[in-house]
């Protein structure tokens, strides 16, 4: 059975380690903090200028000056610091964020990512997405394996790119793929969701991929 959004987020959370600094995109990535193992300390960065993001505030405690990059009201933690947008992206561009988990429209087998411009819709802008994928040390995409338009794991992205050769790992409802950004132009399937068949993945994936599933 394909993974649910929560299961995808839980699988992404397995990539977290004690002490990592992490930036989360909107959508499925915002579910990841629910699955951080108890006792593991992970600091969340918000690119509008905050390190150490806390959960949503209690009703009535909202502070208009404490928002995340999705413009949602959030809270401080004892570890929180604030800084300017220039300092925030110096942190991102300078390779200080360990991990970015974000959604995608398309991912190509060489790590190309498209996630900012939707065909047929007015373009709203890339926000900080291009900076994040270019600057963060490891980029994990979490997404549905296919869209209503078909496969999203492709040989080449047809949509405008967010970044070229930037994705390290893709977690979909069907399984987990690793990408060698600088080496081979082939993805590697390393995990299959329970009850999903390899044939189903093959039929729903345009990208070329090796198979190296543990136990296979």
């Amino acid at each position, binding site marked *: 059975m394909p993974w649910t959004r929560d299961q995808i987020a839980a699988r992404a959370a397995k990539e977290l380690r004690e002490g990592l600094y992490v930036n989360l995109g909107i959508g499925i990535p915002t579910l990841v903090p629910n699955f951080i193992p108890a006792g593991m300390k992970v600091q969340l960065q918000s690119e509008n200028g905050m390190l150490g993001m806390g959960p949503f505030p209690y*009703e009535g405690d909202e502070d208009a000056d404490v928002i995340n990059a*999705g413009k949602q009201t959030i809270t401080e933690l004892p570890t929180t610091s604030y800084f300017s947008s*220039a300092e925030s*992206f110096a942190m991102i561009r300078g390779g200080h964020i360990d991990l970015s988990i974000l959604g995608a429209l398309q991912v190509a087998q060489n790590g190309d990512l498209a996630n900012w411009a939707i065909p047929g819709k007015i373009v709203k802008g890339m*926000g900080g997405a*291009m*900076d994040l994928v270019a600057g963060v040390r490891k980029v994990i995409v979490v997404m549905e394996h296919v869209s209503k338009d078909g496969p999203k794991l492709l040989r080449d992205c047809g949509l405008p790119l967010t970044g*070229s050769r930037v994705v390290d790992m893709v977690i979909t409802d069907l399984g987990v793929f690793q990408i060698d950004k600088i080496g081979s132009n082939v993805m590697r399937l390393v995990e299959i969701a329970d009850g999903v068949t390899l044939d189903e993945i093959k039929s729903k994936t345009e990208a070329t991929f090796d198979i190296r599933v543990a136990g296979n």
Partner: protein
Amino acid sequence: MGKVFENARDAIDGLVNDGTTLMAGGFGLCGVPGALIEAVKETGARNLTVISNNAGVDGVGLGILLETRQIRKMISSYVGENKRFAQQYLSGELELEFNPQGTLAERIRAGGAGVPAFYTRTGVGTVIAEGKEVREFGGEKYLMELGLRADVSLVHAWKADTEGNLVFRKAARNFNPIMATAGGVTVVQVEHLLEPGALDPDSIHTPGIYVDRIVHVPNVAKHIEQRTVRKRPNA
């Protein structure tokens, strides 16, 4: 002689004309210099170029200058929340230059710091690279981006002293301090106006040298775009 002005209209007086380039601080509706934007509206100046991460929402922030069609061009990273924006853009009235958010921030920082150009990995291999110099350093490709300045910068701060030393509050800092450095004239609306000596000199975010005009706006309206909450546990 001092930097403190009576009201936002006076603080803007003489600065904004047809064709002026403005920077406006804020991220979403957080830390937006709303009173100064209102004053810009009152000038009636047209064909403005506005550098701001976002474009407000309908009727709030820069949204009010879109309503009056005073903006000819926006330089932004994300303009999602504004219907009027979409209409004017599609009709060709409004020009739009997208910058990745970090590139926009660094261009402004560079403009204020006397750096005419710098290189960044952001945008390599994307539409953002079109027409830009690509150059390799250490075997990796980078784009050349140019420093960005404006005729006038509009800034929202939390506390200021009369010398123009500024302190921002929490995530309302965002683009405000860098824009303060990159305006030919920098105008600040501030929630709390204090005498020199009231601010800790180790905790000043923007030294007064960057600030030309200050207006005290004590009861500023703060808007929330996405009110997200959790239930308070029962006591």
